């Protein structure tokens, strides 16, 4: 039977929302406080959902130790306590949480074949959350 496994992780990072192709005035209008040149930070909550047939021998969709290990080495170590604007994934794109969802989804989709990736959800603050993938 097909079940969905959801796992939540925490990381902290800073960012500045700014697009070089727009004027200073446009940037300020579009991004408001988030355009502050010195940046600002968030405690992000990352929620990963994977699915698959529950293996009758283990009772699991996938081994949680493997998922945790992958997320730790490929996602958390890359972004935790970093300035997202300086991380190579965001040299060409603005580090909004929408884009962060897509970047993390692609890292998982490419590198973690042990279970089917359904979605990535990120809480930027307690009031804002973003999801990318298949939303049920």
């Amino acid at each position: 039977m097909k079940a969905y496994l959801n796992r939540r992780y925490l990381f902290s990072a800073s960012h500045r929302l700014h697009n070089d192709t727009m004027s200073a005035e446009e940037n300020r209008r579009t991004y408001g406080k988030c355009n502050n040149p010195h940046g600002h930070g968030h405690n992000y909550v990352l929620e990963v959902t994977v699915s698959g047939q529950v293996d009758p021998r283990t009772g699991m969709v996938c081994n949680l130790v493997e998922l945790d290990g992958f997320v730790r080495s490929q996602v958390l170590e890359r972004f935790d306590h970093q300035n997202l604007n300086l991380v190579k994934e965001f040299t060409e794109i603005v580090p909004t949480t929408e884009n962060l969802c897509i970047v993390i989804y692609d890292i998982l989709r490419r590198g973690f074949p042990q279970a089917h990736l359904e979605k990535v959800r990120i809480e930027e603050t307690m009031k804002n959350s973003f999801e990318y993938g298949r939303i049920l």
Partner: protein
Amino acid sequence: MVYLTRKAEFAASHYYHNPEFSAEENLRIFGKCNNPNGHGHNYTLEVTVKGNVDPQSGFVVDLKELKDILDREVLDAMDHRFLNKEVPEFFTQIPTTENLAIVIWQRLAPKLNKAQLHRVRVYEMPDLFADFYGEA
């Protein structure tokens, strides 16, 4: 169609072990969860039902009825129990969070008449939860 979610909490102990695996394999696959003396969690159960709103009552489902079914089928059987030893489904299946969601679905689905079961979500911890939608 309107969706209604009811939460319940229960505390139970469990351990993961497959008698077909060697002692080393069990330890390698299940890690700390393999301790035969068991360990416990405060589980949170979220049951989502869906249906059309009854024009007379304004309800999708009578919440009192749903609560009674949850108490009888899930909480009486699992709250303050050792799942491997006291819940018959787990005499032969490993009581992982995925299997708990499936077993709870199987217990609830035949008891609901007006509303249709949409999702069973079981939180083992605030950062680990499994969903089952009745998919094969």
